[in-house]
């Protein structure tokens, strides 16, 4: 039988990986689109999670997560690509001129009246998918080791601590110019979207979760290359003969 400390550390670390993905999405969307609708999406996501976990309990591990990963991943991918393209165009046009500028001086990504469904849906999907993955980790580790309460502490602890770090980071993230933030969030959504959609299809990534870093590097380089090309096109720079 596995010891309680091993179960606690394993579920905590495994859950933290998922919690970091969740907090990254919520933080990026909130800072770019506004916090009200984003936080309502987070609340709704946790409410759905609580109902699902309460209703299914240990049977949760029998739920096929593949289709959910595919749907959420594909939606994040196509939406993330829109922000990536917008971010490339804006940063190419204005550079990092917004750095140091007060965030209120920049036009917000969304300034409509009422409810921002885009922020809600993005935050909701991020919380539900990653929260379910944390619940799967807790149930599988906890049930297999016959240490479910310890595994619950590990999983919930990881989400609470990562969420706390996110709240601290939120102050700094909102100081980043919105055009640049949109590019960064676009890259992150495209990265997670690609990873989850293909995992949902049953594709084995080389290096497992480490492939997320590989995708991130690829998309950062892609964005940097296209920003250079767009700037050359916009300002008429020609490469030296």
């Amino acid at each position, binding site marked *: 039988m596995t010891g309680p400390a091993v179960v606690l550390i394993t579920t905590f670390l495994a859950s933290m990986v998922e919690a970091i993905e969740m907090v990254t999405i919520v933080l990026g969307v909130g800072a770019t689109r506004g916090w009200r609708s984003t936080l309502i999406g987070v609340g709704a996501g946790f409410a759905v999670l609580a109902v699902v976990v309460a209703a299914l309990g240990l049977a949760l591990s029998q739920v096929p997560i593949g289709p959910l990963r*595919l749907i959420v991943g*594909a*939606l994040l*991918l*196509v*939406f993330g*690509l*829109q922000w*990536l*393209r917008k971010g*490339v*165009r804006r940063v190419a046009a204005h550079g990092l001129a917004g750095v140091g500028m007060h965030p209120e001086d920049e036009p917000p990504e969304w300034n409509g009246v009422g409810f921002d*469904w*885009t922020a809600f*849906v993005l935050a909701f999907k991020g919380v539900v998918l990653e929260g379910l993955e944390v619940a799967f980790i807790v149930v599988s580790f906890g049930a297999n080791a016959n240490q479910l309460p310890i595994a619950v502490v590990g999983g919930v602890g990881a989400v609470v601590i990562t969420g706390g770090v996110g709240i601290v980071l939120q102050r700094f993230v909102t100081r980043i110019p919105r055009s640049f933030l949109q590019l960064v969030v676009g890259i992150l959504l*495209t990265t997670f979207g*690609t990873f989850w*959609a*293909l995992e949902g*299809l*049953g*594709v*084995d*990534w*080389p290096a497992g979760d480490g*492939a997320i870093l590989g*995708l991130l590097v*690829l*998309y950062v380089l*892609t964005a940097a290359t*296209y920003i250079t*090309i*767009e700037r050359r*096109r*916009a300002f008429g720079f020609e490469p030296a003969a």
Partner: protein
Amino acid sequence: MNRIVGWIVAFGRFWYHFIIGDDWTVAAAIAVGLILTAILNAAHIIAWWLVPLIVVVMTGLSLRRAGRKT
């Protein structure tokens, strides 16, 4: 009745903008990429590279098209 129709139209419009956005070709290429990846994966052919490649190529093509319009 009109309110329900209006709500359905707004709901459809939201998802259209969420998925298709300003360039339908990108969403279509991603859909094709995912279908091809599923087919290749079922045939036990390594296919993780296909969607990232489509992302890189389609982003460039879409930016180029948008640049021509402006």
